[in-house]
């Protein structure tokens, strides 16, 4: 069978009627519509997607975190190597951006999510519950910020800028003009 988000959705609804899952429309010409799963049901749905003989989405290729103004998202791009189909886009949402930024980890289902979930934790601050080894991936352990968030402010260290621009120009030329 050809895997489309709709067929996958129907199949999940048939097998797991209590799972909160809905189809999100993607307006771009790519036509990659996604399935939004409630985070409490995500692990169960993921197990089903991987093991169901009709779906066999055995390959979680890409995991990316996205920062939206009021929540964070983890987006999984699933493929089926057995059926050579995909991508099926699965997304889960956090409650908010700070205190409730938790999602279930899908690493127990797809090992390939391991480093990518750690990266999303590191750079976006999504806490993946159930992840076997949730540490920072790229930044050092003492680092406290989540730099890929939209509100992250980089440390100011523009002492010297040969070709200053915009804000930097304002910053460095202000003391010079006063002096």
């Amino acid at each position: 069978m050809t895997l489309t988000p709709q067929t996958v959705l129907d199949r999940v609804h048939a097998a797991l009627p209590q799972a909160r899952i809905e189809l999100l429309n993607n307006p771009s010409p790519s036509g990659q519509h996604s399935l939004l799963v409630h985070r409490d049901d995500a692990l169960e749905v993921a197990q089903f997607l991987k093991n169901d003989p009709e779906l066999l989405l055995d390959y979680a290729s890409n995991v990316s975190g996205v920062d939206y103004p009021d929540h964070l998202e983890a987006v999984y791009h699933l493929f089926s190597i057995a059926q050579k189909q995909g991508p099926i886009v699965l997304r889960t949402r956090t409650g908010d951006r700070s205190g409730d930024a938790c999602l279930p980890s899908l690493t127990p289902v797809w090992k390939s999510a391991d480093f990518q979930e750690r990266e999303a934790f590191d750079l976006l601050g999504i806490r993946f519950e159930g992840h076997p080894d949730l540490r920072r991936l790229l930044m050092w352990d003492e680092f406290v910020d989540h730099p890929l968030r939209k509100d992250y402010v980089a440390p100011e260290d523009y002492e010297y800028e040969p070709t200053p621009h915009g804000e930097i120009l304002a910053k460095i030329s202000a003391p010079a003009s006063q002096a």
Partner: protein
Amino acid sequence: MTEADGAGAQTLDVSLGPQHPSTHGVFRMNVRMDGETVVKLQPVFGYLHRNHEKLAEGKSWLGSMPFTDRLDYICPITNNWGYALAVEKLAGIEVPDRAEYIRVIVGEMTRIQNHTAFLGFILGDMGAWGSALMYAFREREKILDLFEGLTGARMMANYMRFGGVRCDLPAGWLEKARAYIETYPAFLDEMEKFLTGNEILLSRLQGVGVMSAERAINGGLSGPVLRASGVDYDIRKVDGYGVYPRLKFRVPRGTVGDCFDRFMLRILEIRESIQILQQAFAQIPQGPILNPAVKTRGFKPPVGEAYGRIEGPKGELGFHLVSDGGEKPYRYHIRPPSLINLTLLEEMCVGTKIADVMVILGSIDIVLGEVDR
């Protein structure tokens, strides 16, 4: 640093890297050894984390193109291709035929030079730092000369554009490339004679770092490493992007999934790439190279998101792009094959000798620019 574990045996913790001659850049592994046998291995990343994804959110869509060159810096052109493909999906851009053929030609040449360099580097990892690398780089230089004639730079090509390529092939380039590709199999034969029969090489590679197909799929391995485990999965065939459906080629596969399979698979892939190149040279049509509907300045794709992927020389290179309709990407995420191929590094290495760790790492063929971005 020794410590006694619960069983009373002595283990030794060693930090390999980031400055280590065989770790392909600034990769670090914390290895726990029992004698010479690895019992635990933890990769440590981030020593080359250049904030590519954050920077891209502050640049125009086109402005990220030269940065993709610096992801996997051994094969910049395929990175360009992956990004261009993802944006074309996002904005629904058609690519003219000639541009698709040019992309295949430069892409396959990139694959050849990446695998050639791989042959040199893996010998370096085994301690044979010298002849093989010199021969490989001697050959790679010739492809780089062709790239420089076409794109203007030896490595950082910045060649693809949304909806095509930046410039047409200069006069005489195609003939030069064709003539060069004809001489390439002779070099590969020589290299095979030089290496593949070598007993030392065989004993270092065979049966080392075995990975089963099932684990490889679950661990998200891609590219040559996945196929060496016996999985028939090549995105050029599966997705059929570009003009690959028009070209005949086989997808080589390994049987055991050890380092030797990964090594031989690259050699076989080079031979298939040569087949593809010869067909592409014969079929390339005349015509435009760039979709005229795409603007250079002020390019704005529609709102939405897209995931585009290509079969890069190292594996599945994907770009997940989210657009809010503005001049800059809202989110720009790369699926780096090198990073995800390392997911199972620990599984491959545990139980082997410490000296084999380098060989296994070399056989995965990582580039740190892509691992850490």
